[in-house]
């Protein structure tokens, strides 16, 4: 089943056309990696999928992004409600300052005002377990999150995104600020998350894409050059440009 379907998506910064007419379908419970050289619009593209792109002054988007059958760019829909269905993890670990690990995990739910205190604790536990962080933090849930290591902070951010229970999770280079061990942990985690969530991940690291992604999209200068099953993209690409890039001839 297709959870997320993008049709003819264009994005601009002022006059600069950063994302050019992209159309891709994302099947349920899959991991899709977006690779490409720097400045190819991968981050801009993924930021269009939860309407964070429009937070930048001068930014503009056209096209359709259908999430569970609803076009998120439909003018009659509330952007705040839409974002609840699509989580995001950023390049730099960004736990909220002056907040404990527990508060960071449940803040999304808490501020949506739906849950009781006892439920929040359960949600925190299950999300931190899903993010493979529970065992490391269970004795210090009420300490400030800034005391965690970079890798732990990033897993906390994943737990925070999971707590609102979105079917889709966007990740914008989630491991580029982390060391190899922390990176390996996040990669294992993504493999685990795939059982329940649909993941779209931007990465600079082709090996990472090959390791964790079922599907891979290759972007150059805002164009989608090729999209397909990861194995095909990395071993038997159809396009010359893709082949050059995955063989390391440019980028």
């Amino acid at each position: 089943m297709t959870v997320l379907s993008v049709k003819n998506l264009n994005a601009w910064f002022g006059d600069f056309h950063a994302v050019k007419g992209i159309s891709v379908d994302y099947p349920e419970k899959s991991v899709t990696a977006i690779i490409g050289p720097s400045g190819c619009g991968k981050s801009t593209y993924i930021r269009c999928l939860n309407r964070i792109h429009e937070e930048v002054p001068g930014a503009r988007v056209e096209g359709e992004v259908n999430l569970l059958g609803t076009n998120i760019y439909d003018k009659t829909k509330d952007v705040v409600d839409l974002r609840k269905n699509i989580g995001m993890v950023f390049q730099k670990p960004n736990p909220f300052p002056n907040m404990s690990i527990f508060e960071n995990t449940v803040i999304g739910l808490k501020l949506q005002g739906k849950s009781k205190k006892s439920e929040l604790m359960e949600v925190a536990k299950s999300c931190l377990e899903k993010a493979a962080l529970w065992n490391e933090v269970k004795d210090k849930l009420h300490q400030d999150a800034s005391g965690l290591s970079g890798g732990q902070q990033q897993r906390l951010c994943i737990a925070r995104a999971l707590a609102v229970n979105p079917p889709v999770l966007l990740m914008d280079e989630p491991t580029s600020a982390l060391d190899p061990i922390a990176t390996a942990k996040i990669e294992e985690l993504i493999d685990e998350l795939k059982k329940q969530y649909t993941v779209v991940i931007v990465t600079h690291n082709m090996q990472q894409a090959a390791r964790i992604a079922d599907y891979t999209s290759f972007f150059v200068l805002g164009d989608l050059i090729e999209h397909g099953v990861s194995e095909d993209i990395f071993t038997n690409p159809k396009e010359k440009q893709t082949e050059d890039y995955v063989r390391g001839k440019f980028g």
Partner: protein
Amino acid sequence: MFRYRKFKNFLFLTFLLVCALTVLSPLLLVTQFVFIKGASSLNWDFFTALPKPVGETGGGMAHAILGTFYMVGIGGLIAIPLGIICGIYLSEFSRGSLSSLLRYSIDMMTGVPSIVVGIFAYLILVVPLKTFSALAGGVALAIIILPIVTRSTEEILKLVPNHIREAGLALGLPRWKVIVYVLLKGSRSGIITGVILAVSRAAGETAPLLFTAFGSMYFSSSPMEPMASLPVQIYNYAISPYADWQRQAWAGSFLLIIIVLGVNLGVRFYLNKNEVLQVFKRKKGQK
């Protein structure tokens, strides 16, 4: 070569040290002078009693101490919420010419001499109400506090990286909740520091109060009556020809410095203590 470089290094370090000491010396001298002159004149009466009539020694400034807190309170109640809200607007919503006009006006307000602020409050409140009043004094102080709180809140909020805001929005939170529960909470200590700076500045202002609250020799709790304040009382006593009043002016100056310094250090210590406690807990957790 090496010895020559070491010598140059020594020379410049000495120069920097002298500069630093020169900058610090006025603060030290003022504090020391006020301390020596003022501390000896402080006694219990000073905090609890009203002024005695001219000619009798003794008496105190209890009414002025209360008056300062009262009017700084009025000023703070008006200006702190307004300033924080303006700061949020400038940092979070400012796009276009309205905000640059607002920012420019706020900067101008910082530069307005405080005596002019006093005259303004006199014109809009004292003249129509036909009486000097604590309310007019409070409003004048609010005008002093407002721009400082606004700009410090704006600057502090601008220090929060954008990806923190985006992370909040990406959780499906409305913008106002991101601002109140994520940004303000995260920048709490910075914003409070700005507020304290503004309030301590207002507590020491004389000019805005001279012809608004005017001063008095009695206790007063009504905002519609003239009210004494420490700076105005100090001013009146210091220019008086009576030695006992001049002595009390020193004591008042000393107290004013202690209040401003005390509030400053107190809040900073409180904020730091929380952070220190956090570090301590963390260390314990690691063991």
